[in-house]
């Protein structure tokens, strides 16, 4: 796998390979790059931010309260597309607990009036 390290502005081009059961990172300029490369290779994760629509109109911004596996992002966005929020929420309120078994809660990042 080829990727770019984002740990610092250097932006090292990393190559990550599995050899004999070990994950080998090359191209990194420092230990942080190795750690990043390994994580990106074995279990890449992202915090997802998106909108949810209200049942009665309007949108509310949300995020996952922790990074979720990259391969769950598509499922989560599909869930978000069909979900409709029917009540008022405040920033920080949990709207859904681990939807699509993504392992993170979906939390409001802004206030929403409901209707």
């Amino acid at each position, binding site marked *: 796998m080829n*990727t*770019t390290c*984002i740990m*610092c*502005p*250097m*932006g090292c081009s990393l190559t990550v390979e599995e050899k004999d059961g070990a994950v080998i990172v090359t191209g990194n*300029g420092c230990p942080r790059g190795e750690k990043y490369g390994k994580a990106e290779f074995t279990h890449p994760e*992202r*915090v997802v*931010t*998106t*909108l949810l*629509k209200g049942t009665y109109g*309007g*949108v509310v*911004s949300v*995020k996952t309260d922790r990074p979720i596996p*990259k391969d769950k992002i598509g499922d989560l*966005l599909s869930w978000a*597309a069909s979900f409709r929020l029917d009540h008022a929420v405040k*920033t920080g309120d949990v709207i859904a607990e681990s939807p699509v078994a993504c392992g993170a809660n979906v939390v409001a*990042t*802004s206030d929403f009036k409901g209707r």
Partner: protein
Amino acid sequence: MKKFDVVIIGGGPAGMAAALGAREQGASVALLERDDRLGGILNQCIHNGFGLHYFGEELTGPEYAKRFRDKVLADKGITVFLEAMVLSLTEDRVVRAISPTAGLMELHAGAIVLAMGCRERSAGAIALAGTRPAGIYTAGMAQRLSNVEGYLVGKEVVILGSGDIGLIMARRMTSEGAKVKLVAEIMPFSSGLKRNIVQCLNDYDIPLRYSTTVTRVTGKNRLTGVYVAPVDEKMNPLLEKEEYIPCDTLLLSVGLIPENDLLTGTSVEMSRVTSGAVVDEFRQTSVPGIFSAGNVLHVHDLVDNVSEEAFVAGASAAKFSKGELALSETVSVLPSNGVRYALPQKVHQGEGKVKIYFRVDKVYRGRTVVVESGGEVVKRKKTLVMAPGEMQNVEVDKALIRGDLSIYTEE
């Protein structure tokens, strides 16, 4: 007529931090915001990545704004005017504004902090050739329409410019089911953050072409496509290599311009490079009592830096209003050799340290940043890499200042 120690124009991240900075010094504060809520553009930046430096955690834009907004609104010493647009200001610090609830108002300020932010360069400003259909937006406009209003501008997208808002919108549109066909960047590098290139483009296999621009657009009522072409070293497109990309949307992320139109007619000295005022380390402009902070002063990469800068500006404005900002002689900060601009442009001699922010003119690897004063090197800082999109800083001991400071890079 109303009197305040400090009048702050703009209620985005800069204005809110300035208000808190001024309050820390015990000043009475008026905060004028043109929108109907505080927070500025942060309110439409629903992505995360804010606050890592300032709060030590990753927040979304609305969350970052809320942290400041809650404090501002809870402080009885800050009078907030919403939907209030400043029409004019004078050098003796009279601010005229208008709002639907207060009507025309005249505020007399002990000190003024400018915190109006910036605007996006438009299709007109880059003299975009072609027809004039719907389907061409600044990235921020598309962002507001989607994140605040809940409406999507199109389904097949080309983005011109790889500034951060453009990169963020590439991911945002994709996660709404739109297809981002290309991000074209006229420069040989991106002015956006590395993290955004990886997480907004690479994660979604969105192609980014450097040294490439949009040469013209087609479509009568709605955009039907754009022509792109590589550019030569002088940024002139190689039209023989023009390529047509059908799309219904063109987003522009081609630069931000500090909104200093209020200063027209004043003697506030402006920088041709930053398009903001020339300031000292307290963010005071050449007109005593007028301060400037945030993106209206110079375009920042991180909101965290905006908050830090504006807090200082607000606190200094409060001190000025009480006659407590005693200032010594200034020296100039002069950028050269790879440093495009440095800010503050003026520094007072005295005690303590001063942090000089600067941007480089292109990507440099393994260079040393040198600050000289009166012929003596006062600071050297080795760097791994410096990119124009990322603001750098270097701290200098004021006691070492013997004359103008020159800041430059060397191999």
